[in-house]
């Protein structure tokens, strides 16, 4: 699964997610990716989210919408990411990962899987990594 979230210079937010599914999945099975509020969400008044991981679990907790809800309650993009993924694991035993950008450009990224390939670009600098503490950067 791949995903992207962006905020442009006009303050508009967008998100997208795309996947080829799971190896040897049952034909016809659809996970969270194409479901609004599960595989992704975007709202100019809050921010944007793209998710990845165990699709059935993500659907059950409406992960992307849950994160924006937590941000509406005052949590930062990072705090909301961590809280929502821990909640998903505790509620339905599913693991996953998210990237989040708040309307004011705050970046959140978190995962409860072994690894997550992710990165972000801001203020002319790009950051990327795969393991939790493996973040590199360059102009």
């Amino acid at each position, binding site marked *: *699964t*791949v*995903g*992207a979230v*962006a*905020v*442009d*210079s006009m303050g*508009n*937010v*967008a*998100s*997208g997610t*795309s*996947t*080829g*599914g*799971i*190896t*040897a*999945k*049952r*034909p*016809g099975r*659809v996970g969270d*990716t*194409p*479901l*609004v509020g599960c*595989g*992704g*969400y*975007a*709202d*100019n008044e*809050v*921010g*944007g989210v793209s998710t990845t*991981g165990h699709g059935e679990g993500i659907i059950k907790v409406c992960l992307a919408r849950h994160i924006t809800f937590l941000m509406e309650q005052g949590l930062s993009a990072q705090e909301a990411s961590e809280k929502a993924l821990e909640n998903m694991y505790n509620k339905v035993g599913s*693991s996953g*990962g998210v*990237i989040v*950008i708040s309307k004011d*450009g705050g*970046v959140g990224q978190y*995962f409860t899987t072994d*690894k*997550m*390939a*992710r*990165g*972000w*670009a*801001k*203020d002319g600098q*790009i950051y*990327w*990594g*795969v393991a939790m503490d493996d973040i*590199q950067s360059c102009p």
Partner: protein
Amino acid sequence: TPVIAVHGGAWAIPENMIADTKLGIQDALRAGYQVLQSGGTALEAVQAAIIKMEDDPNFDAGNGSVLTYDGDVEMDSMIMDGSTMKAGSVGCVNSIANPIKLATLVMEKTDHVLLVGEGANKFAKEMGVPRVEIESLVSPHAKEEWERKTVGHD
């Protein structure tokens, strides 16, 4: 200040795929960020970044999709515009290179949010989206994984 974030999936990425995965993430970020820096919209940046990853066989999307139990390709994709709350998505599509483009067409050209299966493939045809051979979407890694999971294991 424009900002973009991307992910390439959360899973137990094998050691031999990590270097290429990191390069793919950087390529996607650069593609999306360039759009933003040249005055493009968030929607255009998201599309540009995802197309880069859909075209990269190291990621499970577009070219690089894994196989179903029956050995077919079924791809899902979604895009959402936070300025209008419009969204478009597709499920179980095949024979197209970039499902994110089809999801965008659902958002822009229909009153619907989600089209799936045969209907989504028909819509792609109506919109003039070029068809590609399903085999061209399947990477050697995806084929190996499918064989390992369906043929036998210890």
